[in-house]
């Protein structure tokens, strides 16, 4: 059987099981475990940035409050809502793949990608606003007053954390768009859904990172 025919055969008959696995379930569980290990490395990748943030905030509590008040809370809240909704959409999309509802799945995945793009556009506006307000350390930073250095530190961390997060969103959107095409081609279904499922896991991780970014960046020192 040539490669092309083999590919069609999986689509019709079920999952291709590599020889090191006993059955499709074991293969799927191994893939899921691998994804979770990758997610653990991602948690630590962002964790280092959050640890730096924690230490800086303990050292300069007032400076971080002053800085956080200069971020756009309304936009940050909207971005959080968009990511939460997108997480639900991709979970429903992966579910639809499992039920062989390919058109529905493609629609839900396309919706997820659209929300991800919307998030990036909103973040673009945010960055632009901060640039016009001279809040970019090393490029254009004009803050005066006793808290200026702490504000500069906050914005360094802000750009590192949100920048790397946006990069993850962009990667996620690209992967999801590829998935949309492959779902429409019938590459996945009730017997072959590991890739959409693992992509959904990655997207949920991106969501979880933002769940912590939101209060730490946008909600400090808002009262009073």
């Amino acid at each position, binding site marked *: 059987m040539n490669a092309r025919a083999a590919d069609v*055969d999986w689509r019709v008959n079920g*999952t291709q099981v590599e020889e090191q696995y006993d059955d499709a379930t074991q293969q799927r569980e191994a893939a899921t475990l691998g994804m979770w290990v990758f997610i653990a490395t991602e*948690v630590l990748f962002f964790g280092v940035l959050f640890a730096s943030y924690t230490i800086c905030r303990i050292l300069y509590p007032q400076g971080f409050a002053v800085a956080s008040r200069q971020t756009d809370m309304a936009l940050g809240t909207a971005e959080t809502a968009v990511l939460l909704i997108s997480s639900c959409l991709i979970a429903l999309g992966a*579910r639809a793949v499992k039920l062989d509802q390919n058109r529905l799945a493609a629609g839900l995945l396309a919706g997820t990608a659209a929300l991800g793009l919307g998030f990036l556009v909103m973040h673009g506006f945010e960055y632009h606003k901060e640039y016009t307000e001279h809040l970019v350390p090393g490029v254009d930073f004009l803050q005066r007053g006793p808290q200026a250095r702490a504000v500069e530190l906050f914005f360094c961390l802000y750009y590192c954390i949100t920048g790397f997060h946006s990069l993850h969103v962009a990667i996620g959107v690209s992967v999801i768009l590829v998935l949309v095409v492959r779902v429409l081609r019938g590459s996945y279904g009730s017997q072959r859904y590991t890739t959409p499922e693992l992509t959904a896991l990655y997207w*949920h991780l991106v969501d*979880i990172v933002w*769940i912590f970014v939101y209060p730490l960046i946008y909600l400090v020192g808002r009262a*009073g």
Partner: protein
Amino acid sequence: MSTAATVSNARPRVTPVRRYLWVLAALLALLALSAGAALLKLGVFNTVIALGVSVAKTLLVMAVFMHESEARRLTRIAAALGFVWLAILIGLALTDFLTRVPVPPPW
């Protein structure tokens, strides 16, 4: 196992749509809670509520959206590992930064 391709035709289990929608509603309600609480003057509880809500949201996403509530133990351990190491990293760092006392020179 002699053949490369094995056919398994069992239907995969899926979570009901209703549960996903409830979780989304809860997540959005928690978002509103954290945004609202941030505008009130609660002192240290501003931070406690903000982080508590984030942890609650994360647990909801992991349990339902990421299917951890029905996952195998090994997967759950792997899922918890990243957070455990992160807690060690931040916890040990804080033992230093939270206990620093300025010691003036004796002269």
